[in-house]
């Protein structure tokens, strides 16, 4: 059982901060939380919300229905008021026209903040009222407040605490608190979560753990957080973070750095990946290891910059003009990012080729509780000694984006090309057959998905009570085709979830497997991640016709 609270208001006024603080406070009390930020490509104004789902079991997706809303300002109210159905509670600022709506408790957040600590703290006042309403101890916010505002000084932390206090005092009497009771920590049977994090942080931390010491980048949503994290880290330790004039320069600098011995990466999103395609080809042709992290968002072109999609599968698999043959990773959880990102660096070094690490907007931005994160160790320094790095005596050589012949000079002779390029094809690794996660349960259907879609699939599996199983490939190139084929063979129906309109994942499987008549396809491409209920509805509909 999970609950969900939603802060609904105007972008840039503190909705996010309230959501982040609530997620951190609940996490600190031992709840598994999943905080989903709904924002737009602008700085201030317009609708924004933050949903915090929490419970005593792990959760990798937002809840579809809220239990409690908090409203300040008309933007949030106009968008979400219709969702206040029977059983749902709401705390709304008294300035909103809430009369006649059942379940709404009007409280003067803005007025109290304005006459006291200041209007900009209105969301923290509301947060305090919600904390009291939920029965969450006020101390639960001490650490989150200190952490969130640590860089802004003790004075601001004190003001936020004062605002929170005002909110707590505003709390309704217990009899007004409705049916909603917060589960006590002592009731938990499941292990507590250890970390509250998000994909962009796990990417950066895993990169540091395996020894990444170079990142070049150009600002882009929703990938910039990776660059910022490493840039902060490199100010106090060895390593270089350099912001470039564009993504073309970024990827070429990373190629130069990697060639010169650094453990280099770039992190970008859709439009940036398009610009980096040229460099991915250069990395492939020159055999320089390169890690490209891509946070998928809605495309083509600028698309919807802050919204979720899984539509860069085709581009990543192709990697550019010619036979680029990049490796493509696609972890399905934050825990898997921790394990697979170091492995992606290892593969780039071992196979001397570009590796594209596909994440998605929901995975990179959602604030989620996780258990233990493991970062496997690879001795990249030792591996680098096997390739000729500038500065080493006696290993001078020529590298080129041109096809080189036996003498190390550009060639356009057919036989020379065949000989040199067939060596590249032989390097295609077969060791990735273990790269998938199988969740075995029922035999009626197998659901196949990648990335953050796993969260919705897990909830759907539970609610379908043992009728279906699921498999999440963690590498798309080279696809663990033998292992997938074995699992696919066990099911009469295989549902492929595609976070894109073309069925990019479906088409990949069709090109590998003959079981086309058993493949079903469900697609979503409106900027939102899959929800458990739409998967359940689809599965039930298909199985009803059995």
């Amino acid at each position, binding site marked *: 059982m999970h609950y969900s609270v939603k802060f609904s208001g105007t972008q840039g006024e503190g909705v996010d901060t309230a959501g982040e603080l609530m997620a951190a406070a609940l996490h600190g009390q031992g709840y598994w939380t999943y905080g989903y930020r709904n924002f737009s490509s602008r700085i201030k104004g317009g609708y924004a919300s933050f949903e915090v789902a929490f419970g005593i079991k792990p959760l990798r997706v937002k809840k579809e229905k809220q239990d409690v809303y908090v409203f300040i300002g008309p933007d949030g109210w106009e968008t979400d008021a219709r969702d206040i159905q029977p059983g749902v509670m709401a705390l709304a600022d008294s300035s909103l026209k809430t009369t006649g709506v059942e379940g709404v408790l009007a409280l003067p957040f803005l007025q109290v903040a304005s006459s006291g600590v200041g209007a900009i703290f209105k969301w923290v006042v509301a947060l305090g009222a919600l904390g009291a309403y939920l029965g969450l101890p006020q101390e639960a916010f001490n650490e989150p407040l200190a952490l969130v505002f640590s860089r802004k000084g003790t004075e601001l932390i004190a003001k936020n605490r004062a605002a929170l206090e005002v909110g707590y005092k505003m709390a309704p009497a217990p009899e007004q608190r409705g049916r909603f009771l917060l589960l006590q920590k002592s009731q938990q049977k499941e292990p507590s979560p250890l970390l509250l994090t998000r994909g962009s942080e796990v990417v950066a931390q895993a990169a540091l753990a395996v020894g990444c*010491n*170079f990142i*070049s980048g150009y600002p882009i949503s929703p990938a910039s957080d990776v660059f910022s994290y490493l840039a902060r880290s490199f100010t106090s330790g*060895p*390593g*270089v973070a*350099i912001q*470039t*004039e*564009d993504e*073309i*320069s*970024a990827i*070429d*600098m*990373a*190629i*130069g*750095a*990697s*060639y*010169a*011995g*650094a453990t*280099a990466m770039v992190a970008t999103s859709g439009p940036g990946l398009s610009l980096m395609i*040229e*460099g991915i*080809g*250069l990395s492939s042709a*020159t055999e320089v290891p390169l890690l490209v992290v891509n946070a998928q968002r809605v495309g083509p072109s600028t698309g919807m910059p802050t919204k979720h999609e899984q539509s860069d599968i085709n581009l990543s698999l192709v990697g550019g003009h010619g036979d680029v043959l990049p490796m493509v990773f696609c972890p399905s959880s934050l825990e898997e990012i921790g394990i697979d990102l170091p492995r992606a660096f290892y593969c780039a070094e071992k196979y001397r080729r570009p590796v594209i690490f596909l994440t998605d907007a929901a995975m990179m931005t959602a604030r989620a509780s996780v258990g233990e994160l493991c970062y496997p160790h690879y001795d990249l320094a030792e591996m680098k000694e096997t390739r*000729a*790095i*500038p*500065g*080493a*005596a*006696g*290993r*001078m*050589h*020529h*590298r*080129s*984006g*041109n096809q080189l012949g036996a*003498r*190390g*000079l*550009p060639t356009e002779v057919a036989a020379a090309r065949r000989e040199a390029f067939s060596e590249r094809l032989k390097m295609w690794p077969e060791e990735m057959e273990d790269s998938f996660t199988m969740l075995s349960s029922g035999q009626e259907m197998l659901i196949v998905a990648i990335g953050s879609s796993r969260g919705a699939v897990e909830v759907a599996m539970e609610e379908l009570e043992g009728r279906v199983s699921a498999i999440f490939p963690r590498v798309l190139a080279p696809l663990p085709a033998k292992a997938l084929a074995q699992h696919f063979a066990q099911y009469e129906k295989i549902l492929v979830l595609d976070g894109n309109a073309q069925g990019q994942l479906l088409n990949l499987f069709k090109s590998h497997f003959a079981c086309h008549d058993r493949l079903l396809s469900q697609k979503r491409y409106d900027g939102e991640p899959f929800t458990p209920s739409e998967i359940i509805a689809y599965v039930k509909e298909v199985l009803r016709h059995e």
Partner: protein
Amino acid sequence: MNDHEAYKQYDRGHKPTWCTGCGDYGVLRAVEEALASLKIEPENLVIVSGIGCSGRISGYLKAYTFHSAHGRALPVAEGIKLANPKLQVLVLGGDGDGFAIGLGHTLHAARRNSDLTYIMMTNHLYGLTKGQTSPVSPLGFVSSSTPAGSTHAGFNQPLMVMAAGASFVAQGTAAQKEQVKDLIVQGVRTSGFSYINIFSPCVTFNKVHTYKWASENLHEATHNPHHLGEALAEVAAHSGLLTGVLYNLHKSSILSPSVLCS
């Protein structure tokens, strides 16, 4: 190997694919002699080049050499230098490479004042694709891509690079090997971004910007190269057609000196 032949240690011994009489032969020899004079260990030297006739030069030099993509020599070189600042990094390319497809990188490398030596080989056209108009071809330039004459003026290359923040800006001609060699030596010794433009005639496609054109139209600079205002004014007044050191103000590179890989 005596001093006179010391340049040969930087030569791979491959026969260039350039046409007989191409200015790039002169640039190649000037680079090799400058390296010999600087006594740089070949294994600590990285040569990065772009695409085009000029881009082939990296394959003829003996060092760690990297023939990158069209217009991208500078960012690759900057990554190399950032990863290991102990390496000497030379970047070579043509005017299409550095002032059309790679212009953004040229100006930003100058702005960052990256500690590199960028040797530009200007032939005023695209040679390897058979002679199209380049971004430094002058107004009215006739070629296969502008048969009625180019309707756009060419860039004033040194003016742009100076304005963007380079430490060292110089020009020479492929026919004046000793001067070019000296400019390269000075450029390598200057910390920060050094830009050395060499007018390197394309004898096959360019019937305008010939060796004779260079000798008649380029004049040795006489201004104070340590004064940015004077340098900008002179280079603007002469449409960039000056040789020698045009600007030289030592500024330290903003790039982090941290050594990652050694």
